[in-house]
């Protein structure tokens, strides 16, 4: 097929292909699908942080009107699941280790009957000591939650580079800090839901909203003791994910119910929909972390030595904690060059809600500590924070703390820093603010003005794709139909459309790779029965992996077309260069395939009388390598910034003894339209990644990462107070502002 010119719409803000159905209400999410004869399932949760089940009696529940069957641990063939380790029970049989542990499943004719029967299940528990503070749980002599995690430490990552003692001895200034970052709830607006049935080939089929069809399939098959091919997973529309759908919620339990019922001769679909409260109690959260940092630098701003300890609360099971911890270990020293570094990062099991993937995957926590340290250092040195960054950011060839250079050709950290600062008018508006506040006269309270404005800066780096030696790859298939000309092309790919616009971008990239107009591309997506493994819609990897898979597939399909095959059908799997896990002693590793880079300037207004912080303006410079669809990229920047605003200011996830006190939108406050900045300036940079398709990097997590430390820097600029703990709720801010004498800058 001769290709005169690029017909594909790469680089255009093409409207989302799923938009027409979404604006008319026609799109179907898992909870919107109904099948004839469907039964309803409801789940009984433990609501105990740590307890032994002494007695479980479902007889009364099973005799209730409308109830078809109650399932317990005994019904699960291989009662374990987990993304990186099969260490969690599908249904708890002997011990419950967190409040959302599932104990029984009721299947009934109606949802209401299933719900009512839950109350008739009799469970007797013997409470066990609940460990809810990882710093206590990791102490020698603390009770152990799993025998195989000694001292409750799931994973320890040490990183050793150079000689930190020498580095500190040679330093002119030392900055030390202790930071806390809280749990965060994903709060996707579509609570977990799904529908299971046996398909025409007898496969246990689950329609559900997830992030990785083939991993869901594999975990379901494992628990049921079936080969993967006997299980099928289909994603209809997905109402947001953000990492929160990467681990199992309703997938296995729905499959279990429909499969067991089928064995009993009941061939009916089973449906479940979680309430908002169940969603908040039932899936993992962003890891809360405690980070201590000691940094040394020369008077001219050159960083010399960093010593950092990270303690991450994993909750009772592994989920993705070891990987999140690895990312926190790599990012807790920031995107900077260090001659000497010593990091000890620990993921600790507790009886809190499990922690797992959430946009940024350890990088927001690591960078909160790193960027606070950097901004404090700038203040100590009397140096502009932007200038201090430019002296220290990693550049091409520089060795990271894991003693390898960053991959991908250009390392655009200096560029994102400079472009962002320039766009925000950093020098013009802010330099005079960044004088050492210690030198300002301490004013009396009578000169206080209620509204104080401040500016803050932060930057970040984050990997694209799975890290630490995980076998990465993504499959796609393309069919070209027609006679003398290609009339239509079908792209089959399992990648999930979680709202990011993945499917639109996949089709744009297929059009480009095939040299066809977008209207001739058809997409068949997100079904294990029609596509090979794509991996997860996470780690900012979908565009990068889909693009490479589509390019390879398109080339193979076009070759077959030239060889006169009709239809021309090609299947291809993209595999990137291998990565490495940390060396057990030094942490030396080439941990990642590619990175994205980001910098932000924020303007805040602090009401010193109420403690209210208003984020007024944000400038975000993001190196995306190649913008396949600029409007969708802006959408990720704006959405990521606002989600991070929630993390930094409004979202206060409160727990007590492992119980959640904020399981509703009325007390867990995600930002509304009246909380957000009036404008977020997206500054999209295109420094191509050498491995990325058309140079594209991933970008969806990056805008989240630097926002919280940029806000705390701006609050310091406004008030002279450093806040080392998130979120900055009004009462916390007010208390801190009023416990010291305080001078507004303006």
């Amino acid at each position, binding site marked *: 097929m001769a290709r005169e010119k690029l017909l594909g719409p790469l680089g255009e803000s093409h*409207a989302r292909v799923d938009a027409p159905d979404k604006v008319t*209400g026609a799109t179907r999410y898992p909870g*919107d699908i109904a099948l004839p004869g469907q039964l309803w399932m409801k789940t009984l949760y433990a609501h105990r942080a740590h307890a032994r089940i002494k007695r479980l009696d479902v007889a009364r529940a099973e005799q209730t009107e409308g109830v078809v069957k109650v399932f317990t641990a005994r019904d699960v063939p291989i009662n374990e699941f987990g993304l990186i380790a099969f260490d969690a029970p599908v249904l708890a049989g002997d011990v419950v280790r967190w409040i959302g542990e599932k104990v029984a499943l009721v299947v009934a004719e109606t949802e209401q009957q299933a719900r009512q029967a839950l109350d008739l299940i009799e469970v007797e528990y013997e409470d066990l000591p609940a460990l809810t503070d990882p710093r206590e749980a990791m102490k020698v002599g603390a009770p152990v939650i799993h025998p195989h995690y000694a001292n409750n430490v799931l994973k320890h990552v040490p990183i050793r580079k150079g000689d930190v003692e020498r580095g500190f001895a040679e330093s002119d200034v030392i900055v030390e800090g202790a930071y806390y970052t809280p749990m965060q709830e994903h709060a996707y607006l579509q609570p977990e839901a799904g529908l299971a049935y046996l398909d025409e080939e007898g496969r246990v089929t689950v329609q559900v909203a997830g992030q990785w069809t083939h991993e869901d399939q594999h975990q379901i098959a494992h628990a049921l003791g079936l080969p993967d091919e006997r299980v099928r997973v289909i994603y209809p529309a997905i109402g947001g994910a953000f990492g929160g759908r990467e681990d199992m919620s309703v997938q296995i339990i729905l499959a279990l119910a429909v499969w067991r019922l089928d064995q009993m001769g009941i061939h009916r679909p089973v449906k479940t929909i979680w309430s908002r409260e169940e969603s908040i109690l039932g899936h993992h959260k962003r890891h809360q972390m405690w980070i201590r940092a000691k940094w040394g630098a020369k008077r001219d701003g050159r960083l010399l030595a960093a010593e950092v300890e990270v303690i991450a609360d994993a909750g009772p099971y592994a989920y993705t904690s070891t990987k999140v911890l690895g990312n926190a270990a790599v990012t807790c020293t920031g995107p900077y060059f260090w001659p000497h570094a010593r990091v000890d990062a620990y993921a600790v099991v507790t009886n809190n809600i499990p922690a797992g993937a959430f946009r940024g995957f350890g990088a927001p926590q690591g960078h909160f500590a790193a960027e606070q340290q950097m901004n404090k250092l700038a203040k100590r040195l009397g140096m502009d924070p932007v200038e201090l960054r430019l002296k220290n950011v990693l550049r091409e060839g520089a060795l990271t703390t894991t003693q390898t250079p960053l991959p991908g050709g250009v390392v655009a950290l200096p560029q994102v820093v400079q472009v962002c600062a320039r766009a925000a008018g950093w020098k013009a508006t802010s330099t005079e603010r960044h004088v050492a506040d210690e030198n300002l006269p301490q004013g009396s309270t009578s000169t206080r003005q209620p509204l104080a404005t401040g500016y803050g800066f932060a930057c970040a780096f984050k990997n694209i794709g799975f890290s630490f030696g995980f076998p990465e790859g993504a499959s796609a298939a393309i069919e070209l139909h027609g006679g003398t000309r290609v009339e239509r092309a079908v792209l089959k790919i399992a990648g999930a459309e979680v709202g990011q616009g993945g499917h639109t971008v996949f089709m744009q990239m297929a059009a480009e790779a095939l040299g066809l107009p977008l209207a001739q591309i058809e997409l068949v*997506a997100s079904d294990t029965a029609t596509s090979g493994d794509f991996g997860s819609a996470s780690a900012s990897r979908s565009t990068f992996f889909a693009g490479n898979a589509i390019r390879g597939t398109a080339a193979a399909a076009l070759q077959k077309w030239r060889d006169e095959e009709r239809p021309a059908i090609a299947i291809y799997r993209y595999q990137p260069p291998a990565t490495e896990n940390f060396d057990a002693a030094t942490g030396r590793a080439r941990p990642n395939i590619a990175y994205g880079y980001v910098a932000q300037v924020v303007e805040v207004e602090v009401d010193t009388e109420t403690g209210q912080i208003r984020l007024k303006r944000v400038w975000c410079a993001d190196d995306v390598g190649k913008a396949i669809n600029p409007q969708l990229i802006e959408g990720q920047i704006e959405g990521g910034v606002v989600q991070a605003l929630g993390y930094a200011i409004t979202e206060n996830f409160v727990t007590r003894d492992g119980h959640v006190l904020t399981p509703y939108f009325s007390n867990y406050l995600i930002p509304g*339209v009246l909380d957000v900045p009036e404008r977020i300036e997206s500054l999209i940079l295109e420094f191509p990644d050498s491995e990325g398709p058309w140079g594209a990097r991933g970008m969806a997590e990056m805008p989240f990462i630097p926002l919280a430390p940029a806000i705390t820097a701006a609050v310091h600029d406004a008030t002279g107070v450093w806040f080392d703990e998130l979120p900055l709720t009004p009462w916390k801010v007010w208390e801190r502002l009023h416990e010291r004498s305080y001078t507004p800058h303006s």
Partner: protein
Amino acid sequence: MEQTTIRFTLNDRPITHAAMPYRTLLEVLRDDLGLTGSKEGCGTGDCGACTLLLDGKPVTSCLVLAAEADGRKVTTVEGLAKDGKLTPVQVAFIRYGGLQCGICTSGFIVAAHALLESNKTPSEADVRAAIGGNLCRCTGYDKIVRAILAAAYDEGELVDESASMPVMEKPLFTEGPM
């Protein structure tokens, strides 16, 4: 308990429906009448995903009993486009990227319609106030605000192009064989 009979106008069509008196309008629409465009994001009146128009006014239908609709006019997101022609608000959401996962979208679109019915020349602050009760976890709201303002002011330019957009020849997702 006995079912009550409710008579109302649903998207311009008369409906007579029997339902238990404790059931919400949202449940009846979604579970009995198959109109799943209105979503349940919270069930407690906090998110706006279930917003629809009752006699032209936006309400959170998870907090409205179905029986309260008796004798009234209910308009859901499915009832906005007439004869397959999208409204300017719908076209603007598509063009300006006012949606991502889309689970909040029907609520925003219905709220925007209610605003533009009562105020043809809204300010940006009016727009923000009108959607102050609708949560979105994906977009950060900016493109939603831009879309609604565009629907108000560029109405003439917002022709429904969805017919010329790439459409799947077959539905993207088949629904299982049952």
